[in-house]
């Protein structure tokens, strides 16, 4: 059995996520790997997106700071970055297409917060420009 060959860094990392409605839903900030229960090479299980994932890519003091901010934003003991399971990935091209709308994704939290608390309150936010 031979499948498509990809390079993680070149073809997947840092690419745009696009939801089922064509809306932008974050970047592939990192990828989650798991060794299958039966052993063998690791398999990609999820795309990690958002500040909590990006922080490790950036590293250094800035990365640590970003991670702290991300943890603070999530609140509680939740230390996991936002995950997008490979089960909802539709295709990988110049962007990564998803089969679900972004509201169903963990990556949408910050966007939703900004809309609900700030931008959504300005007059005309709900109408397309004319």
């Amino acid at each position: 059995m031979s499948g498509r060959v990809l390079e993680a860094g070149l073809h997947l990392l840092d690419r745009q996520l696009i939801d089922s409605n064509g809306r932008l839903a974050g970047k592939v900030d990192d990828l989650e790997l798991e060794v299958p229960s039966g052993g063998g090479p690791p398999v990609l299980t999820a795309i990690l997106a958002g500040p909590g994932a990006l922080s490790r890519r950036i590293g250094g003091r800035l990365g640590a700071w970003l991670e702290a901010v991300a943890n603070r934003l999530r609140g509680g003991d939740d230390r996991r970055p936002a995950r997008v399971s490979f089960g909802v990935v539709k295709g990988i091209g110049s962007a990564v297409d998803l089969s679900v709308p972004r509201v169903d994704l963990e990556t949408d939290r910050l966007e939703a917060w900004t809309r609900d608390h700030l931008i959504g309150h300005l007059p005309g936010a709900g109408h397309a420009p004319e």
Partner: protein
Amino acid sequence: MRLSDLFGADVVDEAGRSAGHVHDVRLVQDGPLVGTFGASLRVDGLLVGRRSIGARLGYGRGQMHGPLLVKLAVGWLLHDGRYVDWGRVRTVEEDRILISGSVEDLPVPGPSS
């Protein structure tokens, strides 16, 4: 484990010799089936070299059209690149990956897609 844990790690053989750092991870889509994606992506091996600068530009695949200047510069930077089949990976530690055999017999990476 995250992919970023592999990136940049020093790849070392049994004799303690280094083949360089991981600058990319090759994946093959023939793992177990998942949702709308189909077969999942499995790690096939590691692309390793002394320098990783320029690795992300895409000139390793031999299909870029140019420009010649950048092609030559990146080719020179990455000329010592080697491929480590995942089968040879013994342990993954923080910042270090131990492989079986010797770094001397690591092959040059073939083209991907």
